């Protein structure tokens, strides 16, 4: 869609443009919803660098990397689905694949959470990592895990909502199907972008033993 054409459309108030614009504004609000968590992360990382690295080593880098690959692939499936929807072709398989990959991500995340709970890494009163050598280290690790759980849980919540929408779209057809797939796709890719940043920030600190 060329820019000149699009602005003419905007003046006439086409519903597709309005809906897409509205969704991007929603994505803007979502970015700013995650914002404070990222600021909190910067605080912990700069005030407790050793504790943050130690805490990050407790996360499962293999599962995290696999999950990132899964999510990136799900974005491909979603992009293909949107492309096909625009060409009025069937999207069911691709939407299902997207949702399935999303669910796989959530399952793996659940496994990671299970391990972390077992190691007493959930940041409540019972927080007790094996390598908290000082009070300072303990506080730093606890704050890191607060952000780890908050960020990944918020992300997982958004991903779950996305899965629901994808599954819903495989069942429903409807006249506005192409638009619905496009909008769901934008949302899905946003969730992917958030994870693209979460992965290095949470999983890749202190991995070289530093």
């Amino acid at each position, binding site marked *: 869609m060329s820019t000149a054409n699009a602005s003419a459309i905007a003046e006439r108030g086409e519903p597709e443009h309005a809906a897409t614009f509205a969704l991007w504004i929603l994505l803007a609000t979502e970015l700013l919803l995650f914002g404070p968590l990222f600021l909190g992360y910067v605080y912990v990382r700069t005030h407790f660098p050793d504790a943050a690295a130690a805490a990050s080593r407790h996360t499962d880098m293999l599962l995290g990397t696999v999950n990132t690959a899964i999510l990136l692939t799900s974005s491909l499936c979603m992009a293909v689905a949107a492309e096909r929807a625009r060409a009025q072709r069937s999207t069911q398989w691709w939407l299902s694949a997207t949702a399935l990959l999303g669910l796989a991500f959530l399952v793996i995340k659940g496994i990671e959470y299970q391990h972390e709970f077992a190691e007493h890494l959930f940041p409540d009163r019972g927080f007790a990592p094996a390598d908290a050598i000082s009070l300072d280290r303990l506080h730093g690790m606890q704050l890191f895990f607060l952000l780890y759980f908050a960020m990944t849980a918020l992300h997982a919540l958004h991903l779950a909502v996305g899965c629901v929408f994808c599954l819903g779209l495989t069942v429903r057809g409807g006249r506005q199907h192409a638009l619905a797939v496009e909008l769901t796709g934008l949302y899905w890719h946003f969730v992917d972008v958030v994870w693209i940043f979460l992965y*290095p920030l949470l999983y*890749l600190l202190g991995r070289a033993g530093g």
Partner: protein
Amino acid sequence: MKQYRLLIIVWIALLLLLAATAASALLQLGAWNSVLNLGIAALKAGLVMLFFMRLRSSHVLIRLTAITAMATLAILFALSSTDYFARERYVAPYQRPQQIAPVLR
């Protein structure tokens, strides 16, 4: 398959970048680890936004929306850091003595 060529190429690039960031994390590069990781993350995010979210061909209004959101977040980080990175340098009489200063590495 032909019409999805671009999407598949982007996907392969994303996976390669993922491999790069994971592998580089295992090397001891000091501060450069973070720089590299965040740089690669920004590249991946850029690829997803430009090609999967089709920002390249979006209406100018939509690109403006994306930029405004990122700029607002940047303001939050930039102006907060005027506080955090200067707490020890410019001490006021009413500042608590036990303020923890950030350790930059």
